[in-house]
């Protein structure tokens, strides 16, 4: 007979974390097969879902696991996207390399932003990140930087041709190729995030979230961890931004408004704040639901979106991942 206490404790703390290999394998197989059974445009949409998932995971590391509230992740997404676009457009960089470069640039930006942000907690940090988010689109549009950023009209970038061997043998399309690239990057980043969370550093991050004073008393270098987490979080979102610039083949300031920050935040909450894989569901939500809302009513699409969001939060207060966990516990009790 199990007592209530045992059932409620997080198995990761008692048993040590293990990846559920069966589910992961199923996911990888399904994910790898998907682009070959659906239409090109759907592959493109699924690629965007994965890109959002990476960005949401970045936000999750900062907000969900480290407790630092950020409304400014659209800024890091934009920095990643524009880094890729500018390098390809002006300096003819090979497209693939711009992805990690975008991530690194954002890591530095995130870390540098995280340092002064150490002084800010909760609402004040939210406001500071908000300021960053609203400043970025205007900076990108400004006439001073127009030659670099393309101003309001933005920049086009074109993806390089797929390696010929793949086209000849597998008849691979551009959409399928970039779906696979994004899928591999996503798996890699998710695995790294999982390792981070389940390491000492991860526990330090979560300790800072749960009780900053106790964490510091235990000897955790709070300032260092908080800034580094900001950097890592920005790194993830920057990679997502760079991927989005390449896959959409276009960047413009209006793609990166404060609304994007809110969307990422919505994706985080709907997916589940303490969960890594929940980010995928969050990404799916923020891509599909606005489109559905627009089909219901063009004039009232935001209102419809709001209603759906409220319903979802009401039904799943701890996000989709939370819902799955509750179901798992309930099912275990039954069987």
């Amino acid at each position, binding site marked *: 007979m199990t007592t209530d206490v045992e059932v409620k404790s997080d198995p990761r703390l008692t048993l040590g974390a293990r990846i559920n290999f069966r589910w992961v394998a199923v996911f990888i197989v399904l994910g790898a097969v998907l682009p070959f059974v659906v239409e*090109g445009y759907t592959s*493109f949409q699924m690629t965007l879902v994965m890109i959002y998932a990476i960005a949401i995971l970045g936000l999750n590391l900062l907000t969900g696991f480290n407790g630092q509230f950020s409304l400014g992740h659209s800024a890091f997404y934009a920095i990643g996207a524009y880094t890729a676009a500018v390098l390809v457009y002006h300096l003819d960089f090979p497209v693939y390399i711009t992805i990690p470069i975008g991530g690194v640039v954002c890591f530095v930006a995130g870390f540098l932003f995280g340092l002064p942000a150490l002084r800010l907690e909760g609402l004040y940090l939210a406001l500071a990140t908000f300021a960053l988010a609203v400043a970025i689109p205007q900076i990108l549009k400004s006439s001073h930087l127009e030659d670099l950023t393309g101003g309001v009209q*933005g920049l*086009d970038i074109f993806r390089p041709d797929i390696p010929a061997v793949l086209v000849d043998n597998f008849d691979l399309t551009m959409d399928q190729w970039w779906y696979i690239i994004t899928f591999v990057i996503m798996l890699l980043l998710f695995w790294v995030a999982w390792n981070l969370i389940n390491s000492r550093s991860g526990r330090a991050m979560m300790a800072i979230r749960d009780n900053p004073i106790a964490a510091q008393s235990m000897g955790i270098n709070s300032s260092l961890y908080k800034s580094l987490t900001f950097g890592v979080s920005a790194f993830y979102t920057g990679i997502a931004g760079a991927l989005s610039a390449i896959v*959409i083949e276009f960047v*413009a300031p209006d793609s990166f408004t404060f609304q994007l920050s809110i969307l990422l935040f919505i994706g985080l909450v709907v997916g589940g704040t303490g969960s890594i894989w929940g980010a995928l569901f969050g990404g799916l939500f923020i891509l599909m639901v606005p489109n559905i809302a*627009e089909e219901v009513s*063009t004039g009232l699409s935001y209102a419809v979106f709001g209603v759906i969001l409220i319903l979802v939060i009401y039904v799943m207060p701890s996000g989709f991942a939370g819902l799955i966990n509750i179901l798992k516990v309930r099912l275990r009790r039954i069987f």
Partner: protein
Amino acid sequence: MNNGKKFTLALAAVAAMGMAAGSAVADKKYGPGVTDTSIKIGNTNPYSGPAAAYGTIGKSIKAYFDKVNKEGGINGRMIEFVTLDDGYSPPKTKEQTRKLVEQDKVLLIFQGLGTPTNSAVHNYMNKKKVPQLFVATGATKWGQPDEFPWTMGWQPSYQTEGKLFGAYVMENVKDPKIGILYQNDDYGKDYVVGLKEKLGDKAGDIIVAEESYEVTDPTINSQIIALKNSGANVFFNVSTPKFAAQAIKKVRELDWNPVFLNNSVSNSVGSVYKPAGLDKSKGIVSLQYYRDITDPETQKTEPYKKWKAWMDEYYPDGDLINTFNAYGYLVAQTMVQVLEQAGDNLTRENVMKEAANLNLELDMLLPGVTIETSATDFYPIEKMMPVEFNGEKMVPLGGVVSAN
């Protein structure tokens, strides 16, 4: 869709294609979106957002295609007009255009509205070899058949208009000092380039102030104040309807009475002069190339009566004094002409070929204004007429002029 249903559909599609290929007559050549009974045309228009005043153009085009379909279609094919809202936002335009081309598989994109929005898909359309036809913007860059053979404008280019305004100032204003308000994108800058080109060496002396604004700005009041303070006696307004109405109100509020030049893009009683105040809009000079539907003289003509009958039957919600509804009527007629000329050869290549082979007079254009294109001339309309708004209607100030 599960795999089984998808497979059956794919099988059916292959079978259908096989049958179609077998029965195809040698003359009939179809691009994407075309069947024996229909032609699918895509469009993006701002039905929401800062440029929503233009949304009526999309609606009037749909209404004209409804009329064409009711009367039998084009060579027996009905037009399926798929129009999506892009909110005048370039990334949204890219997304919707991509959807139209890759998911809906339209034959061509017709009359996409806006300069920044069309710029966002300019390279994409030419790379994908999809016609970007008769774009609803006058930016000069749409008329470059060598570099962008799949893109064509329709209305007189903004640079042409800028030059004509420059000519007007030189002829009619003594000791001119021009203050310019322009939208900070290709559209606004194009007009300024045209004006400066016409003024030549004197541009530096005559133009005393230039103020720009962003489409996302809520008002342009500070810019108007700055222009008044510059001592300008000519105000060249290069802004879209929402901002033009604001500009008119502010100029009058500041008790400033310059020679008011208004770009044709905002020369509309319904969208600009009425909201700003008909009284305040008196004396505004602009350039026209199609008949003024608010002019009682025009309303007595046969072309107008035909237009009005169409509005009453197919677009009863439309505003009868909004010139954009005459614009939509005219561009739709041009598109129909191109498709009729293409006959049964409805590939994308042939559609572009016929678009570059136009010599057309439409009855709602001002007499003397023609639509002419060739393989080297991708500017369909190049003639305009100066007019002045007298509080009720536009009064001609001379005849139709050409910038060349």
